[in-house]
Every structure is written in structure tokens, then in C-alpha cells.
């Protein structure tokens, strides 16, 4: 009987300390920038690197990255659950800019999406212009020779894929050879690999993962329509309550600064043997801004 009470007392002490520690953890919550971001961007590790450098100047600030799809990243910002958004879906961004939810912003990096597919390349698209390649895949799909896997998750990559189809003037929706997954990039690449299908991918995920994708090959890696523009936005505190605008603006300035751009430019060489992003460097010729407008219009 005595033993029992000791055990019960132990359990109570343990639980109380568990509660105490958990509550204590949530107290470290000031000076925080909440950044919702596209998963593919976060998964490269670039953001942690940028945050680390930023914190050398602002040691008291913590940056919380919440990695979700671009669609969800923006949606969370509307609800007041982000101070900053990093996104690569201009068509979606435009909508939120028009609504006034996003305030200032800037393009901080770009790279090219790639079209990957089975190494036999049944639609014969290798090296083709991306828009014409989509038509070729459509035709081959209708003939029963090719398949295409879509992420179908409202991510930036998905938005771009839909744009490519519409530029090509074809509509693959509800076709037998067009598989809509609702999955992230890794799962989509895996399905494409298993099914011998074409798909659109970002470079970094594909590179990291390519050793497991024996059946796939990069077929197209250039072309204006594949330009992938990453933008940073501060959420408008006049429209959305509770936004930590000041700190978010400081972090945005850092990302767009020469120092931040240099980090972006060199990122990935160590791990992949090639940089993953090109720095926008203020977009001196306005080309990126134009590309952004073009994509935004199509959305």
C-alpha cells in the first residue's frame, strides 16, 4: 500500500513538471518573425542559412519558418498567422497584393523549373521549348504513349504547370493519362518514376533525390516559361492585425541586401556541385518583374 502511494506521488510530480516545462517553453515568444514559406524553398536549407546570418546582427530575434505550399502560405498570412511570406506563385501573390494583405515585396531569387520524364522520352521532348513540349506530351498522351503526373496541390510548381498547359492551348484535365496527385514534390517524382511519366519539378528537389529516380531524366531545363521567381512579402499590418511588421521588414531588407543576395547566389555549390538559385540582385533590367507580371496575368 505504501508503495502504491509513492508511485502515485511520483506520477503526479512528473506530470506537474511536464506541464510546467511545456508552459515555460511557450514563454520564449517575443521578438519573433513568423515566415510562411514554400516547402521546396525551405527544404533546400537556404532559409536557415539566411536566418543564421541575419541573427548575427539581431541576436534577440527568432525566425520561425512554417513550411507549407505557396497557396497555404498566403492563406495563413490573410488570417494573421504570418509576418512574412516567401512564395513562388505570382498568380496567387497578385491576388493577395490586390486585396492589400501583402504590403511591400520584392523578387529575391530565381531559377528554372525542369521537365523530367522517362529516359526513353516517348513524346520526344528533350531539349524542346517548354510550351511546345507540353503540346507534344498532350499529343503523345492522347495516343496512349505518354503519361503526366501533376502535383495538383495549389503549390507554385502546380500553378506553373497549369500555366504551361494553358500557354500550349491544351487542357489535360480528366484525361486518363493525366494523374492528379495532391502530393508534394518528392512523392510526385516518385510516382512519375514508378509510372514512367513526365512531370514538372523544381531543380533542388530533383537533384537531391535523383539517385532514387533511376527511370527519370531531365529533359528540359531552359526556357522563359520555366522561369521560377521567388518573392518575399511583408504582411500588411494595417489590414491584418498582430503582424510584426518592423522585424519582418528588417529581415526582408537583409534578404534583398547585397549580403543576403551573395548568400543566395552561392548556396548549394557545396552539396550539389552547382548553385540552386540565382540572386535577383535588385533585378536591374526589370526582366524578372516582367516575367512575374506575365505569370501573374495567366493565373
Amino acid at each position, binding site marked *: 500500500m505504501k508503495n502504491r502511494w509513492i*508511485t502515485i506521488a511520483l506520477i503526479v510530480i512528473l506530470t506537474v513538471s511536464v506541464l510546467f516545462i*511545456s508552459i515555460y517553453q511557450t514563454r520564449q515568444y517575443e521578438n519573433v518573425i513568423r515566415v510562411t514559406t514554400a516547402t521546396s524553398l525551405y527544404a533546400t536549407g537556404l532559409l536557415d542559412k539566411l536566418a543564421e546570418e541575419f541573427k548575427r546582427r539581431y541576436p534577440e530575434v527568432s525566425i520561425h519558418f512554417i513550411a507549407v505550399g505557396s497557396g497555404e502560405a498566403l492563406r495563413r498570412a490573410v488570417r494573421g*498567422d504570418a509576418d512574412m511570406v516567401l512564395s513562388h506563385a505570382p498568380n496567387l501573390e497578385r491576388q493577395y497584393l490586390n486585396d492589400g494583405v501583402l504590403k511591400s515585396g520584392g523578387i529575391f531569387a530565381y531559377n528554372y523549373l525542369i521537365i523530367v520524364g522517362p529516359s526513353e522520352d516517348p513524346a520526344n521532348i528533350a531539349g524542346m521549348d517548354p510550351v511546345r513540349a507540353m503540346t507534344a506530351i498532350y499529343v503523345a498522351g492522347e495516343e496512349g504513349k505518354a503519361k503526366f503526373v501533376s502535383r495538383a496541390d495549389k503549390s507554385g510548381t502546380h500553378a506553373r504547370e497549369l500555366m504551361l498547359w494553358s500557354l500550349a492551348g491544351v487542357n489535360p484535365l480528366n484525361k486518363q493519362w493525366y494523374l492528379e496527385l495532391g502530393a508534394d514534390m518528392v512523392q510526385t517524382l516518385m510516382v512519375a518514376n514508378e509510372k514512367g511519366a513526365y512531370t514538372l519539378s523544381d531543380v533542388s528537389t530533383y537533384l537531391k533525390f535523383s539517385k532514387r529516380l533511376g527511370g527519370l531524366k531531365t529533359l528540359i531545363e531552359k526556357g522563359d516559361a520555366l522561369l521560377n521567381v521567388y518573392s518575399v512579402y511583408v504582411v500588411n499590418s494595417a489590414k491584418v492585425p498582430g503582424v510584426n511588421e518592423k522585424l519582418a521588414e528588417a529581415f526582408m531588407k537583409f534578404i534583398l541586401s547585397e549580403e543576403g543576395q551573395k548568400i543566395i547566389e552561392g548556396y548549394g555549390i557545396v552539396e550539389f556541385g552547382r548553385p540552386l538559385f540565382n540572386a535577383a540582385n535588385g533585378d536591374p533590367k526589370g526582366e524578372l518583374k516582367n516575367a512575374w507580371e506575365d505569370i501573374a496575368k495567366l493565373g
Partner: protein
Amino acid sequence: MWQELTDIVVRSLLISGMATVLATSWGIPITMILTVKESKFRRALLDVANTLVAIPTVLIGLLLYLLFSRSGPLGFFGILYTPTSIALGEAILITPLIISLSASVLRETKTDIWEMAISIGATERQALVVMVTESLPKLLTAVLLGFNRAIGELGVALILGGNIKGLTRVMTTAIALEVSKGEFELALTLGGILLFVTFLVTVIVRKVGRDL
């Protein structure tokens, strides 16, 4: 790397532990009332609890996200993206499971012990105390299963916690992140650790339960 891993494991244990404490603190009393008070709602409530055992974790996550979001009704607490919010979400998630399991335990003890205690002249309060203390080891198993469900779930932790490094990243969200990065080996390692830690907790709790 190891430092971060240890942090994640400890954080997972704390959050799921807190969730279990919360769920137990309201789940067991509810079950006790349901067992002792003969009510026509008893069966209906248990049916509801049994149904809610099947609730998808992302659904609970989404509902609570809308509640805790800055523009949600409880937004002023500011607990979204904190360990506390995950613990609360997981507590709600596992409450039906704990109720459902402990209800069948108490039901059994009731026929064996309660009736006898009453018949030899115990008051209802005394009978209740005897009933609960006699079933403690089995109740502990019910609570343990609740804990295991909490520590292994993904949806609530991902949506409410946001998988923030160093703050709300737990084992399941870390696994999901590694999978989405294509780092399957690391994801599998983390999965192994998750199962191992859960196994340890299970064994320890069973040992403690034997002393009760």
C-alpha cells in the same frame, strides 16, 4: 545534429505527455460519471466517443487552427505555433480514445466490484474509490494507448505547430519534412527512434502499473 535530435525526442515526449495528462484529467472523470450514473445518454455518448476515435488528425488540426488563428475566436491567446497548442490539439484528439477504452474497463469492474461494495454497505463514494483503485492498472493501459496515439500523430502537430525548428518540431513532423526533402534514410532512422522511444515508455509504464 545529435543535439537537435535529442531536443526533438524530448520535445515530442513532453508535448504528448502533456496532452495525455490533459486528456486523462477530463477523460477519466467523464468516464466515471458515465459509468456510475445510469443515464439514457450513456450509450449515445459512448457511440459518439467511439466514432470520434476515427477522426482524421488533420481535421482536428484544421478545426483548431481556425480557432487559434490570429483571426479566429481564440486568436488573442496567441498560442498558435506553440508546443502548448499541439498539446491541446493532441489532448482533444486522444480524449475519445481514452474515454472509450476506460469505459469498458470501468464497466467490467463495476459489475465485479461496485455491486459487491454497495451490497456490503459501502457508500457510493466509497464504492467509486474502490472501483477506480482496483482498475488503475487497466486504466493506465488506456491512458498509455492515448499517449501512443498522441506521439505518433502528424496532422495536429503539423497544422497547429507549423513544424518550426527548435520550437514545435516533433518526431512525426521531422519525419514528414525529411520525406519531403527526399532524405528517406534519415526519415527511417527517425521513425525507428520514434518506435523505440514509444516502446521504452510502454515498458516503463507497464512496470509502474504492476506496482499500483
